[in-house]
């Protein structure tokens, strides 16, 4: 029981963490509330599905293709849609929801609404401290950890990362310091879309594919991002861990818990926010407290 919770919790929260970090990144840098973030995840999953089934290429090439196409799609969305109405945040929200609906309907038209699956990347399992762990689960957890560490190195050790963090802190001052703000935002959008695609590559064999698969993770990553504090990358990871484990415990322990998975983890989020309104790692400005 306990080890099942540990493994499944790590797998679920790893995927959520990669998705939530991508969302948090584009929100922090470009101040865009991208409701279509999990649609990028869905698009990447379906691209893998197509290239495996129709093109018949190897899993590695399919993953590379998925990541590449998703990044291009994300950048196009940003360039032609979100960037133009950036000032009106609710308009951005509506436009991204519309993009999500269009993608969902396109999938529904090309395939029907049935559940589909992608075969595992590596099959088999290994005994690990008395518990048999699927290689696929280990692959997901390792992949998530490597991705997050890579992102952390990119943000803290490179010049580009410094520019991204500067833009996230203050766009106008970053502009005065000679940083091309719109280009940095575009790169951030590319990284964010890439993270969504990586999450899809890692977890596509574990999750069923269906046209509305973007809604459930979207709610969870929004909750995770808010729980950790908006714009804080570290906070998003912790938020995803908390929510992922809550969800797993609910599913495993409570009978019929799959109905309640969303409800209980969101309840946890509400309770945390009542006691810490700025999230776990959010920054609060003294003059804004009420």
């Amino acid at each position, binding site marked *: 029981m306990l080890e099942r919770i540990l493994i499944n919790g790590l797998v679920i929260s790893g995927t959520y963490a990669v998705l939530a970090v991508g969302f948090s990144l584009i929100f922090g840098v470009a101040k865009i*509330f991208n409701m279509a973030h999990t649609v990028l995840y869905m698009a990447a999953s379906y691209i893998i599905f197509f290239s495996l089934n129709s093109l018949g290429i190897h899993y590695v090439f399919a993953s590379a293709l998925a990541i590449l196409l998703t990044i291009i799609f994300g950048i196009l969305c940003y360039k032609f*849609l979100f960037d*133009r*109405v950036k*000032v*009106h945040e*609710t*308009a951005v*929200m*509506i*436009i991204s*929801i*519309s*993009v999500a*609906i*269009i993608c*969902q*309907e*396109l999938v*529904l*038209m090309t395939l029907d609404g049935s559940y589909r699956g992608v075969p595992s990347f590596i099959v088999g399992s290994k005994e690990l401290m008395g518990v048999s762990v699927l290689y696929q689960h280990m692959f997901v957890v390792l992949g998530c950890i490597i991705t997050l560490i890579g992102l952390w190195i990119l943000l803290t050790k490179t010049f580009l990362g410094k520019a991204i963090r500067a833009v996230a802190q203050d766009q106008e001052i970053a502009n005065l310091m000679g940083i091309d703000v719109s280009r940095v935002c575009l790169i951030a959008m590319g990284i964010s879309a890439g993270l969504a695609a990586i999450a899809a590559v890692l977890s596509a064999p574990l999750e069923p594919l269906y046209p509305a698969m973007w*809604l459930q993770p979207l*709610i969870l990553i*929004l*909750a995770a*991002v*808010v729980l950790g504090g*908006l714009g804080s990358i570290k906070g998003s990871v912790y938020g995803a861990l908390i929510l992922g484990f809550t969800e797993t415990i609910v599913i495993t322990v409570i009978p*019929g818990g799959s*109905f*309640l998975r*969303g*409800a*209980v983890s*969101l*309840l946890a*989020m*509400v309770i945390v*926010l*009542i006691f810490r*309104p*700025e*999230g776990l790692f959010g920054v609060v400005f003294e*003059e*804004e407290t*009420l």
Partner: protein
Amino acid sequence: MIYHLRWMWQWILGEVFSRPGRLIAMLFFLTLFILPVFTTTPSTLRFLILAAIYAIFAASWDLLAVTGQVSLGQALFFGSAGYTAALINIHFGFPIWVTVPLGGLSAVFIGLIAGMPALRLRGFYLALVTLAFPVIFTGIIFIFPEFFGGEMGLIGIDRISKNRVIVYYTVVLVMMVSGFIMWKLSDASSKIIRTGIIFHAIREDEIAARLAGINTIRYKLLAYAISAFFAGIAGGLYIHFMRIAGPSSLTVFFSFQVLLWAIFGGKGTIYGAIAGVYILFPMTEYIMIYEWGENFRHIIMSLILIFTLLFMPEGISVWILDKLGIICRRCKVVNFANRKNCRACRAPLHLENQK
């Protein structure tokens, strides 16, 4: 008598016919009243009734947006009021004019509970917390399937009336009255009711509003209560019209839908939300008539939304009113855009065009 009539006519000329916004509103409501004379086909009436119900709902969302609180979970009020009204109607057999207001009151109660976190949260944090509540309520419904009907929902609810035309007039009248009340409550330029300007002040700068001596907490909760009440009225009418109260009225997608309507019409203006519903909803239903419409309607709707918002990000009603009307710089009176001089003070309106 004739003097009074003439005075009335002069008043209508001055207050309605010379202001583009009010003229459009009057024409719109007249059309709604005359429409059943021309067509009484069940399908037309059906989507007009639904449009009126959704218009109340979208306007209630907009009232909350006036205070700067974006709610992503407005379906909570709609759905919970629907369930309350349905339960009262089924178990006690009360008629519709009791169940719908009671549903509204229960929504107020739930809204005040849901509004508690709103006192400490703002902006996106608040939006996300409101998103959580309908999901939690859906969880409660699935825990007690015998009481709430589970996934199938509650059935066996009274209909509003056997005659569709009577249903239509009831719903449209409720929509007009509640829309007018909400518009008046959120109208910043009203001289009688202060809530409008206070709501706007809270949205612009909450701390400055507190400095001005406004109890912002009380007014934010008041906005929550009013918004929840009207959303609840819409929810009650909806279950009595559809005669089923199910979890489909609590989905996240339904909460997003109301955002699409209200922001398309114009955020923070009650008339914008109503206009948004009356433009988008019949369009969706109209596309359904064609054979290909079933598959393409969401795509077409989304494309229309995207292109509208790209060119008029403030919403369609704000854009149209900006084009039609012009405010005199000297006396701040609204004029039609094609006039040369202000109708009140004769000052020239288009100064830059004369060069």
